[in-house]
């Protein structure tokens, strides 16, 4: 039977999936349990000698039992590696890898071990041979986990080089590292750390391990802890183990839940704040490997994103926002005045009381020249939100603690984006802002309005200045707002393909020659295409998925994907092409590279097809 992991959804490289082992299906992320232990679990590890009726079981056996390896290949097994260890001289790691591959290559459908994690170049070498195995165990355990830089390097390398259908297993992972590992794309954990902690007299909690001997109370109500005291746990360690196992398992379930609710990243940030190693890994990952994170980060989410910690500012969708504003978005061309406004707690901003007020006074000042005015909103951590993008994820649905205090980093991001915007737009900029925003606007060279922005006098000043600045201009043609969204979504000047001359708007929908081409999805703020829209966008050459079959149903699966644009991200709107003909449009479930490489799982959910 085929074994593989099918991705259901991503949050960064982290994924919710289904692991198919022989005839079993197990949800992931999940937790390997060692046999001979009580409790109900989905996955068991046992050596070949253990007689167990529990299924599914991934077997392990000694590398040195060569006879056994030759006979028993059923059921699904984790093939042993030459156990050279982690911190060994390179020559030994190299030879051990060669030995491991000799055995592993005889059993392609099984799990294998990536041993030389101390040496990333050897990891890459191993992946050349093992990259398509359905299960890869990352060796190095506690030692690798205590070296965040190497850990990030190695996991991102393996995740990037292995098939998307390969499940990643990190044996011996410390429980505190489960969330960050899951975020990097590790699918499977095990109970080893719970054992080690129990031997060490450590009581695992969700926020780190405690020394049991120093505890006065047990802050848990699991079966082992209920009604017990720390000293009851000292004896043979069985009760402590039971508790530790339950916490470890609960952590995995929390991760799954967080994935389902699109808040894995938030969970990772929260948990990492308890553990310096996990935090170091998260920072290195966010700052140095953000392209790795971004590739798997969905373009939208129904969940409100809470940017509550410093780590939130480096989330992949935030950095993507910055990047797309710089590289894809361009300000409307026939505009003469840019008005800079502060953000509001309510999203979209234009629904807030303050913005409705600002806009009333702007309209009053502009009169019939309103189309010459373009509004942009300053905010952290997104920096800058042009008005027409205010409904686009994550601008349309984020939450931040508002204090009026900005870090230097937040300010810098904002100033840079504003400067970049103003340079491209070349218009006069009028800032109707207060507090810290004033420094930012001054720095970017904007004209400052009055400080007390909600006061009648300041608002009237705003009206007056708008009227004065526009005095010399004739009224222009209204700006076609969907252009900004289109470019943000598909790339620079994509709008010229999707919205040819004569495109009209009715509500959220856009028409060309009487036929609908696209509509704004109110949930994501992004454009959803029709087949006609797909045909128009075809010439642009991006966001295309080349199918090897005409999609027989509303779902295009990865097996049917021949090629897909590298720029495609989970949740993206894509055009499905078969034999140079547009056969469907829909939402990508995976990134372009992933759907090309994967052989199992959903690739595109088709909205329209023919």
């Amino acid at each position: 039977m085929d074994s593989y992991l099918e991705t259901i959804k991503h949050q960064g490289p982290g994924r919710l999936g289904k692991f198919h082992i022989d005839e079993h299906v197990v949800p992931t992320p999940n937790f390997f349990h060692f046999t001979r232990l009580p409790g109900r679990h989905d996955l068991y590890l046992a050596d070949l000698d253990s007689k167990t009726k529990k299924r599914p079981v991934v077997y392990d056996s000694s590398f040195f039992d060569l006879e056994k390896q030759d006979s028993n290949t059923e059921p699904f097994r984790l093939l042993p590696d030459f156990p050279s260890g982690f911190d060994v001289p390179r020559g030994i790691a190299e030879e051990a890898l060669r030995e491991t591959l000799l055995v592993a290559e005889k059993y392609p459908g099984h799990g294998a071990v990536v041993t030389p994690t101390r040496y990333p170049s050897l990891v890459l070498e191993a992946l050349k041979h093992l990259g398509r195995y359905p299960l890869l165990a990352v060796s190095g355990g506690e030692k690798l986990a205590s070296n965040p830089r190497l850990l990030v390097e190695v996991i991102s390398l393996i995740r990037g080089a292995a098939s998307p259908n390969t499940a990643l297993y990190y044996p011996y992972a410390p429980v505190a590292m489960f969330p960050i590992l899951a975020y990097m794309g590790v699918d499977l954990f095990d109970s080893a750390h719970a054992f080690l902690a129990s031997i060490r007299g450590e009581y695992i909690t969700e926020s780190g391990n405690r020394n049991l001997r120093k505890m006065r109370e047990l802050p848990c109500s699991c079966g082992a802890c209920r009604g017990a005291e720390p000293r009851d746990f000292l004896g043979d360690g069985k009760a402590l183990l039971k508790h530790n196992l339950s916490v470890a398992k609960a952590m995995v379930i929390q991760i799954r839940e967080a994935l389902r609710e699109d808040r894995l990243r938030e969970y990772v940030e929260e948990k990492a704040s308890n553990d310096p190693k996990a935090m170091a890994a998260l920072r290195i990952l966010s700052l140095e490997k953000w392209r790795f994170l971004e590739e798997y980060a969905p373009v939208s989410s129904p969940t409100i994103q809470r940017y509550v910690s410093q780590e939130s500012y480096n989330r992949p969708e935030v950095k993507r926002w910055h990047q797309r504003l710089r590289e894809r978005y361009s300000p409307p061309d026939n505009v003469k005045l840019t008005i800079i406004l502060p953000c509001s707690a309510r999203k979209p901003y234009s629904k807030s009381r303050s913005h409705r007020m600002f806009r009333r006074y702007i309209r009053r000042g502009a009169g019939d020249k309103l189309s010459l005015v373009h509004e942009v909103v300053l905010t952290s951590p997104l920096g800058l939100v042009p008005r027409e993008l205010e409904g686009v994820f994550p601008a349309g649905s984020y939450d931040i603690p508002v204090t009026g205090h900005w870090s230097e980093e937040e300010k810098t991001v904002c100033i840079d984006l504003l400067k970049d915007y103003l340079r491209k737009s070349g218009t006069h900029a009028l800032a109707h802002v207060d507090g810290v925003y004033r420094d930012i606007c001054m720095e970017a060279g904007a004209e400052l309005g009055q400080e007390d922005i909600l006061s009648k006098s300041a608002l009237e000043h705003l009206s007056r200045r708008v009227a004065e600045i526009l005095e010399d201009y004739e009224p222009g043609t209204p700006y076609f707002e969907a252009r900004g969204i289109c470019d943000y979504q598909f790339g620079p000047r994509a709008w010229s393909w999707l919205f040819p001359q004569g495109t009209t708007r009715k509500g959220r929908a856009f028409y060309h020659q009487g036929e609908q081409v696209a509509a704004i999805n109110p949930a994501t703020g992004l454009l959803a295409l029709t087949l006609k829209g797909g045909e128009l966008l075809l010439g642009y050459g991006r966001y295309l998925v080349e199918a090897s079959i005409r999609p027989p149903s509303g779902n295009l699966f990865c097996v049917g994907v021949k090629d897909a644009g590298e720029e495609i991200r989970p949740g993206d709107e894509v055009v499905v092409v078969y034999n140079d003909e547009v056969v469907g449009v829909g939402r990508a479930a995976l990134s372009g590279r992933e759907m090309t490489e994967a052989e199992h799982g959903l690739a595109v959910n088709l909205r329209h097809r023919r």
Partner: protein
Amino acid sequence: MRAFPGEIRRIRQRGLARKRKAPKTIWWRERDYLEGEVKAGVLILPTRGCAWGLAGGCAMCGYVYDSFPTPPDRLLTDFKKAMDELGDVEYLKIFNSGSFFDPREIDRETSYRIFDEINRHPRIRRVQVEARPEYLDRQALRGAAERLTPQLEVGIGFETVSDYIREKCINKGFTIEDFKRAVKTCIKEGVEVKAYILVKPPFLTEKEGIQDAVRSGYAAYKYGASRISLNPVAVHRDTLVEELWKRREYAPPWLWSLVKILRDLREKVHAPLLCHPTGAGKARGAHNCGRCDSRVYKAIVNFSATQKYEYLDKVLETGCACYEVWRTQLILEGFAQGIFPDDLRRL
């Protein structure tokens, strides 16, 4: 596998370059077993050292650093002196940290004069020397057996029944066929064989170490060895094992493992089982938690001298808190993971 020997050679050269003192002949008495408990004498002869070891040799062996070319006359004088001081031993074990029958270590003439000296001690019933299989040819054995009055016994470092482990993990430099041939030759010439089994070669988990030792002990017995000696790895200076140990990628076996191996072999091997762990209880030797080490060590030594399993049964009955840790290690160690952290034994 080419790099392990390369690594071993590098470490060996580093070790040999270190300044060493010329060692003296040393000897001591210990308890051993020959159809009952006997007093045994152990005698270490300094020679130029194991040829295989000097060129790189075995991953765990640091004996070559104790060797030193000693003139035959000096060797004989020392030997005689030692024999006088050892007194009334019944079993004499001569170790030269190499091969007794390698003429580069001990020339034929000197060996005969050693035998002549032994023959002057009528209480000695058995004499053990040691050698690699390649030196155990018929001629050498016949000459020795004829010259020596007591029963001659040759210790061979069989180490493991697995050619793979012997080659890849130990770098022993001979195969199971070489061993079998040597045993056959010995038996034909009336020489008995004591097989050394290495407990927990590098790269093996604790559990693999146990399984391998049990299989190997049984195999050696089947092939005709008349005594089986279990040698847990001790961490010698300037060896590959030490390199791994320092990086926390190797730990010597538990004393509990030795108890288990001895008990597992009980039904299978109808020959004396011997085990004299060196450095027991220390970080570099086979050890447990530190609290029970001397108790378990004594049980093993008592067993070796008497072959009475009561000693082992009793020490198991008494047990220790660390026994569970050892059991956990057997379950957990080896899942795509380096060794089980050794510090857990000491908690």
